[in-house]
């Protein structure tokens, strides 16, 4: 059970949040206080638990101490939202004027807590990865257990180079694998995407090596006079 926090008015300023004990030395029975659950600021002595803490010396509102859920329900309309506090309990003249309608100087008493749900905002990906503009469904996590991070490179550029400049059969295999990287990634199969990425790279490399070896062999043959005019 978390402790109830209170706010009180001191020298025209809102102070808090503090615990009930903290209020003890700081306020007097007529100090306006507020805590979550109250619809409005109210003098301390109208809030039962605080009034009790203060000794209840000048607690003029007997109804308030009833056992039902809302101590402030019922006929105590004099105490709330009404700038005209002046006529009820105590003789202190400085009660209401400096504060006016409890709503105004302090605003909505709810504010001190603000929206408690999202202090940090969306923890996922403030910048997203390049795929996000296209609606990549990463937040579902990966059933295969790989970390969802950035899409693995599909090596498309190298696949194209290896098709046009080196060995087209292997190069075409590389392009197909490159396409599958993106296809699987968009479907959420992260491990599959990673596998195709490695394949794309592998085939592009093999194509380049085959092309280079072929070239070397050809030059050797030309040198040896065997391949001229092939």
């Amino acid at each position: 059970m978390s402790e109830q926090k209170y706010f009180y008015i001191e020298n025209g300023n809102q102070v808090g949040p503090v615990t009930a004990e903290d209020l003890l030395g700081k306020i007097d029975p007529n100090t306006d206080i507020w805590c979550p659950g109250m619809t409005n600021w109210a003098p301390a002595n109208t809030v039962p638990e605080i009034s009790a803490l203060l000794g209840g010396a000048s607690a003029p509102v007997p109804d308030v101490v009833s056992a039902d859920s809302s101590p402030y329900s019922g006929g105590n309309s004099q105490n709330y939202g009404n700038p005209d506090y002046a006529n009820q309990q105590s003789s202190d003249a400085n009660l209401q004027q400096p504060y006016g309608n409890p709503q105004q100087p302090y605003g909505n008493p709810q504010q001190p807590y603000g929206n408690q749900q999202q202090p940090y905002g969306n923890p996922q990906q403030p910048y997203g990865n390049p795929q996000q503009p296209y609606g990549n469904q990463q937040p579902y996590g990966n059933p295969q257990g790989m970390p969802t991070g950035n899409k693995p490179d599909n090596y498309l550029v190298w696949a194209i180079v290896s098709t046009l400049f080196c060995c087209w059969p292997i190069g075409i295999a590389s392009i197909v694998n490159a396409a599958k990287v993106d296809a699987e990634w968009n479907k959420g199969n992260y491990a599959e995407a990673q596998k195709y990425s490695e394949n794309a790279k592998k085939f592009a490399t093999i194509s380049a090596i085959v092309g280079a070896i072929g070239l070397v062999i050809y030059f050797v043959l030309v040198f040896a006079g065997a391949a001229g005019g092939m």
Partner: protein
Amino acid sequence: MRHFEHKILWIFTTIAVIVLVAVMVVLYRDNNPLESNWFPKCGFYVMTGYKCPGCGGQRAVHYLLNGEFKESFKQNPLFHIAALYIITVLVLKTPLFYPRHKKVLYALTGLHACIIWFVGIIAFWILRNI
């Protein structure tokens, strides 16, 4: 000691690559693959008589090195398109450009790009033999 050897290897490789590229540039510039025996011919063409997607690439390079752009393009148009594409993508991947142009990069290398390239290469292959 290891760091020193690592650096030596790096320098050696870089020099080797530069020398190799220089040799190739001179070779391709001064010899027309049509007339010289120094250049390998396409195995696919030799065996089937049909041009593969890469055929004409060496001639294209030769003409380009001699400043004949139009002739170069005629030998293999796909090479020119691919060259522009490759340079663009590689530039966009560098740290200087990457952050601002992620969307463009993804458009150029994503699934749709893969499909377009695949279809394009096959189409080029068929059309150039008709």
